[in-house]
């Protein structure tokens, strides 16, 4: 049986099953939660509502597989292979991706060109700060490393740079939790929670370095740092 046939079969069996109303309810709940997300203003609340919606979708998917006794079906194999591959990518590869980036970008410890960058980050989290050779202003975090381009160091003043480093330090501080969110997004085929996370990182940066430097840094480099 091909995948379309299997999906039709799952649909048909579900509609005839006694559990169809419960799975339907989960789908309705997830849609309601997704809609509620847009009514929330605080990024934490939006994130929580979105994660709840994703859990409802995940529960509906797993309940369908369980109730249907779908073992042996190609759709189930494909889904679980997809889950395994995404888990390996997110928890394995991405965790050590900074080591690859250091080599690829030929990044060097920031302490070799400026005094306070590493010390500032040390007060916020445990991460190494590297700079790399590029005039394009960019900053990003990966694994337990923060990368900034020389172009970024050129255009920002000290306070703006502190805001950017604090933003990236927030990502590192939450590195143990954010991969779980990524995984949930993969498993429920939903888009990621990146937008809310960026807002939360900005809120942290504003608390540490002040709102003004954060805004002016954003204006200077537009959305070049993530």
């Amino acid at each position, binding site marked *: 049986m091909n995948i379309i046939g299997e999906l039709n079969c799952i649909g048909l069996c579900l509609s005839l099953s006694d559990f169809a109303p419960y799975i339907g309810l989960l789908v309705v709940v997830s849609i309601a939660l997704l809609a509620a997300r847009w009514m929330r203003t605080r990024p934490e609340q939006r994130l929580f509502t979105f994660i709840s919606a994703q859990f409802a979708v995940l529960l509906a998917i797993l309940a369908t597989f369980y109730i249907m006794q779908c073992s042996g079906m190609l759709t189930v194999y494909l889904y679980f292979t997809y889950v395994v591959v995404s888990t390996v990518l997110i928890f394995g590869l991405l965790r050590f991706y900074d080591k690859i980036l250091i080599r690829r970008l030929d990044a060097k410890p920031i302490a070799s060109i400026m005094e306070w960058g590493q010390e500032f980050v040390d007060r916020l989290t445990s991460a190494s700060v590297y700079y790399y050779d590029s005039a394009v202003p960019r900053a990003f975090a990966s694994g337990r490393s923060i990368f900034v381009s020389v172009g970024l160091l*050129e255009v920002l003043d000290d306070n703006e740079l502190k805001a950017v480093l604090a933003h990236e330090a927030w990502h590192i501080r939450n590195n143990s939790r954010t991969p779980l969110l990524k995984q949930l997004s993969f498993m429920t085929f939903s888009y990621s929670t990146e937008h809310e996370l960026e807002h939360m990182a900005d809120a942290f940066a504003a608390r540490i370095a002040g709102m003004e430097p954060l805004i002016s840094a954003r204006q200077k480099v537009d959305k070049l740092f993530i």
Partner: protein
Amino acid sequence: MVKLDQINISNEGLTKFFSPIEAAILRVLWTDGDMMTSELTEKTKIPLTSIAGTLDRLVKAGYAKRSVDNVNGRVRYVYSPVFSEEEAASEITTRVLDSLVDAFGPLAVENFSKYSGKK
């Protein structure tokens, strides 16, 4: 483009071989010598957002070099040209002529001699 794989015969001057931004940067570097990014944006009147990627490309292609300098606690790039204007012109013409001879052999050489005769 910097790599000289595309030549725009109808363009003027350096823009036959370089993009307008690349040409503007090289002209300023050849005229005024070493300078920081802020001076480059000021003299070329091209904003940093447009110039930054091009600077990376020029350095990678070997037409410009840069060093990282720390002046009063501020990190800065200082750019300088790798070739003088004459050296760059010589390199470009050699590469263009090489490619013409590669493609057309004796015919290209014959045309060069006719051209030099006319001159």
